[in-house]
């Protein structure tokens, strides 16, 4: 055994020497996927947004329970008819090169987002802006084509980050980082590592350490191992199977926070037999959502209806068939004329999310019990996305992103002119009218009631079968305190983290 002993000690000395000891006040962070690009206006991948939220700042930000908090804007208000929105900027806010953030920068940023040539995918959320005025250096007034309460939520996304007008002219937005966020990007080796250091005069206040060292470890078991070996102080985990191991290891803490993104079984209502309402309802009744959650995610999550943001979420048991009822399911099937079931294919993306394969197999075995024979088609991520966008599937296991505001979350699917209609494959007047009402309604309580009605109708029509929401996991070593997770999965909470020996 002597060879193994010497080998291991060599590794030990080497490893300890490398990981920068906590003393130098660097926070070592590890996660499994790297940003796919650095232009805040066009990037939508979760891995990209997580990084950009530390480098850029939008006008406002969503807090731990999704309330609107000041960011670049100190204060804001709607006109009484909610058709104009005025922001007053924080005079202290400066870009990383020290230049102040002015109204002109805000105007230029939004014009860039609205310009089709930029390819800003979140553009749909801001099309109701008809004009932007800058009465003085620190005030911006947005003219809207009609009352649009959700737009304020939209302003909280990093896709609406404020970039210097000069950078837009120079066209360097995607290649050089010039934001006003709490950190600056020192170095980045894509798909491997990145180094961020604290922006001293960030207008949001001081940060308790000097910088962040990011390591991209694609294999989540490797992330857990690096936490144990002290190479990483803080980590983000996707796979519940790995996350549930963290509490077992001494010296590690696991924080879980519910997410807005929802696990769903999308049915293609434009194809027989899913075109039949009773068939879709039978499928909804046949599934035991809690059992799938227990098996695929080891119970790490909560059964949910279509609305996932805390402000609008309702108790799912009130929704259509949220208790498994196989007899009712068989009865619905016979009423729809499919007494002895049918066969179909179910598509899922490999590793996106990590639990997709498990969910597909569980759904397959549960639907088999009422005579629906599914064959599973696992696909590589890009192939999956292509078929998903084209609506070319019988059923699909999906994990779709959620938004704080139900309108911005679902207008793309469940409105008549939503641009992902061919993915939803279902629309009716009630859904469309409820969405429009919700958009214009300014009173919170009324909005909540409208969307609750929208949720009940959606569950009953069951174009999709909503399953559950999972958790976002962050793990940290002892000595790392003060991090507060948010449903959007944003890492902005790292700003308040303190490191102690």
């Amino acid at each position, binding site marked *: 055994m002597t060879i193994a002993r010497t080998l291991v000690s060599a590794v030990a000395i080497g490893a300890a020497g*490398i990981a920068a000891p906590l003393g130098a006040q660097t926070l070592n962070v590890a996660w499994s996927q790297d940003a796919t690009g650095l232009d805040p206006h066009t990037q939508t991948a979760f891995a990209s947004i997580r990084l950009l939220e530390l480098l850029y700042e939008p006008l406002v930000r969503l807090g731990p329970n999704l309330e609107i908090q000041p960011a670049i804007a100190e204060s804001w208000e709607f006109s009484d008819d909610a058709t104009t929105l005025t922001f007053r900027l924080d005079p202290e806010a400066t870009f990383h090169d020290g230049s102040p953030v002015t109204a002109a920068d805000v105007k230029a940023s939004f014009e860039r987002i609205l310009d089709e040539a930029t390819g800003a*995918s979140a553009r749909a959320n801001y099309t109701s802006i008809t004009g932007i005025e800058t009465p003085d250096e620190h005030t911006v007034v947005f003219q809207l084509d009609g009352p649009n309460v959700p737009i304020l939520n939209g302003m909280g996304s990093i896709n609406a980050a404020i970039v210097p007008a000069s950078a837009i002219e120079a066209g360097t937005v995607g290649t050089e980082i010039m934001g006003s966020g709490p950190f600056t990007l020192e170095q980045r080796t*894509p798909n491997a590592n990145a180094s961020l250091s604290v922006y001293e005069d960030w207008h949001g206040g001081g940060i308790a350490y000097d910088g962040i060292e990011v390591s991209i470890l*694609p294999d989540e078991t490797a992330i857990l191992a690096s936490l144990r070996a002290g190479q990483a102080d803080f980590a983000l985990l996707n796979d519940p199977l790995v996350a549930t191991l963290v509490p077992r290891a001494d010296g590690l803490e696991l924080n879980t926070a519910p997410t807005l993104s929802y696990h769903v079984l999308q049915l293609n209502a434009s194809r027989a037999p899913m075109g039949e309402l009773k068939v879709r309802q039978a499928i909804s009744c046949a599934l035991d959502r809690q059992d799938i959650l227990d098996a695929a995610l080891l119970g790490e999550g909560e059964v949910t209806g279509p609305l996932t943001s805390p402000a609008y979420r309702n108790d799912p048991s009130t929704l259509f068939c949220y208790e498994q009822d196989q007899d009712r399911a068989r009865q619905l099937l016979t009423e729809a004329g499919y007494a002895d079931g049918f066969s179909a294919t179910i598509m899922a993306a490999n590793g996106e999310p990590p639990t997709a394969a498990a969910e597909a197999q569980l759904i397959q075995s549960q639907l088999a019990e009422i005579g629906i024979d599914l064959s599973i088609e696992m696909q590589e991520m890009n192939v999956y996305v292509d078929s998903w*966008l084209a609506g070319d599937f019988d059923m699909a296991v999906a994990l779709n992103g959620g938004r704080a505001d139900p309108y911005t979350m679902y207008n793309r699917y469940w409105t008549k002119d939503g641009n992902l209609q061919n993915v939803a494959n279902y629309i009716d007047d009630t859904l469309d009218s409820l969405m429009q009402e919700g958009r214009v309604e300014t009173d919170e309580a009324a909005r909540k009631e409208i969307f609750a009605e929208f949720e009940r109708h959606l569950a009953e029509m069951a174009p999709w079968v909503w399953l559950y929401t999972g958790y976002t996991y962050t793990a940290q070593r002892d000595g790392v305190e003060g991090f507060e997770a948010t449903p959007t999965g944003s890492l902005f909470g790292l700003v308040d983290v303190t490191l102690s020996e």
Partner: protein
Amino acid sequence: MNYVLRRLLMFPLVMLGVSVFVFVAIRLVPGDAITAMLGTESGLLTPAQRESLAAYFGLDQNWVVQYGRWLIGLLQGDLGLSVTYGQPVSQIIMERFPLTLELALLSMLIALLIGLPAGVFAATRVERPSDLVVRIFAMIGQSTPNFVLALLAIYVLSVGFGTLPTMGRFVPLTEDPLGNLAQLILPALALGTAFAAAVTRISRAAMLDILGEDYVRTARSKGFSQSYVIWRHALPNALIPVVTLSGVEFGYLLGGAVIVEQIFALPGLGRVVLDAILQRDYALVQGVVLFIAFNFLVVNLIVDLAYAALDPRIRYGES
């Protein structure tokens, strides 16, 4: 040296073959860089937005034009721009290749340092217990999938010893030799075990044949000791099949590195290609695959040179 000269002339031909093969193969893969980057959100793009992005990614021309432009660029040493990294492909290769190269060389070294002596040792003690032990180890070495080895190594080390080779970052040899070795020794072992087993078996078989040859009997008739006969007369001949094996096996090392780099989270060239294919980053895939093929041919050329150096019959050809 005409033998080697002929091999050199084959270089451009094979490289051209590889370039066409990879150019077509990557474009046959469904999905493109836009879907890869934006995922499901790319559905929100209006046609105009999609066109401008396609132009940015260079996807708008037909294949022949793209290939032509890429080939001309190639001749001037410009491998084009990687979409996902926003850097020239050649720069990415220069940054990432040292790790994969060092990993491959280290596993080759391990394979030769373990395999060759073990093979020779076993050959000289045929049918005795030590021969059997070496053969069983070689057999097991060749039968274990390298990713299982890698997984177990990480688990044992992190749980058992609380230490781990550095992940996510490459510790270059120049900066910190000890750290570099500590980082790469384990992945190299996982990658090199199968290769070491192959070298053991090949060198053992070669030695067995050689020890039966006439010229070894002649050396013995001169009164030389067994070790001198093996070291001076048998070994140089045994190296020839081992060198040939190393040439082919080096190709597998570059391939095997893809999985080991993934598990040990090492930012090497193997992983770049894997990600590039998943991201549909055409320029990067083409550039890196061409570079790996070039390396493979260079290694085979070196093998041929070593061949000629080892065996005068090749160097002078038939008298």
